[in-house]
């Protein structure tokens, strides 16, 4: 079982794995490919490295890249769209109370821009609210919003 792995074998493997990412979009194979390139560079510098060590280095480099990605790059990737995310699009929006909740009747809040296709929503709250108060959406419960008074 004398397989002679040359540095360019790792190079090719690494590139193939990175290419496979295009067809299998899971974002896991990419790091294995990147690790393959690292092993290729090491092997080019030190051609005497044992095969088992090459494999171990490849595996460790993969772990390293994965962790590094989530540690350093993920935090910089902020969500740029709320398309299709109803809850995220609604929570945090600020509206004005146009009917205050009384006697078990729900209040109505109006937004300057329509939320989910409607600019007036019924709401429930635990706070005392008057008509004209500005409120911030905390949660969605069916077709009713849960709001809190917006502190100025």
């Amino acid at each position, binding site marked *: 079982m004398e397989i002679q792995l040359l540095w360019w074998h790792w190079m090719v493997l690494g590139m193939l794995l990175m290419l496979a990412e295009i067809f299998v979009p*899971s974002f896991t194979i990419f790091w294995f490919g990147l690790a393959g390139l690292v092993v290729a560079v090491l092997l080019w510098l030190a051609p005497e490295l044992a095969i088992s*060590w090459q494999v171990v280095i490849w595996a460790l480099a*993969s772990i390293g890249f994965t962790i590094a990605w989530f540690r350093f790059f993920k935090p910089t990737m902020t969500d740029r769209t709320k*398309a299709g*995310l109803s*809850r995220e699009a609604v929570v945090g929006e600020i509206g004005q109370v146009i009917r205050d909740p009384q006697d078990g009747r729900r209040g109505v809040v109006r937004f300057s821009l329509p939320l989910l296709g409607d600019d007036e929503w019924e709401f429930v709250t635990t706070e005392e609210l008057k008509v004209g108060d500005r409120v911030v959406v905390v949660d*969605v419960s*069916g077709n009713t919003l849960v709001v809190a008074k917006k502190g100025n």
Partner: protein
Amino acid sequence: MEGLIIAVIFAILVLVTISLGVRLVPQGYKYVVQRLGKYHKTLGPGLNIIIPYVDTVAYKVTTKDIVLDIPSQDVITKDNVVIIANAVAYINIVTPEKAVYGVENYTLAIQTLVQTSLRSIVGEMELDDALSSRDQIKAKLKASISDDIADWGITLKTVEIQDINPSPTMQKAMEEQAAAERLRRATVTKADGEKQAAILQAEGRFEASKRDAQAKIVLAQASQQAIEKVAQAIQEKELPVVYLLGEKYIEAVKGLSESPNGKTILLPADIPAAVRGIMGAMGK
């Protein structure tokens, strides 16, 4: 040799572990993650990491609007008419974990809910109201359903009544009623026309006879005046009148002789006497 086997197995372990731990959630979806069988968290779109072997993605839920077709059903209105109604509902899953854990099959649940609500709302309406007030039905439907689905983390965006039709037998009866109504109107219109025509005709006749009568009176007055004038003109001079009459008489006889069927003409021998006879009393 053992070193190589261990290294390869280690590499496989790493590969499997990383692919289990990294989850790429496409936009428009949310993944519900369970940690050892219990709900843990919900993954949003983008790159996510979960603890391999411990966390599993239990449900993949779409956050896009879902179109729910509400199948047609027979609904009985307040005045006992069977109508067939169907609708279409647009729902959006706002809180995926509530939707997957709160109800077994949310599409079926909401479909059934819309069906029963539609039936109860239409059941309180008369046929004509039900057919003409779709918007009202829509609003009531939305209000009655939204509270029920609140626990499931689902928002009902709109519900539209697609078709609301009387049943075939009812439709036939309604058509017949409409046809009969039109027929009735046609008959009335026709009778009305006939009546008007008769009245107008009678009026025409009445007017005509009135004028005829007037004409006769005028004619009689004219004759009276003419005779008076002639009588005045004649006074004692009988001869010129007799002469004129004789001339006319001969002309009339001439006219008779010229007519195609008058072959025999009898001329009186004493023309002045004949004329005098015709004139009668006028001669004085």
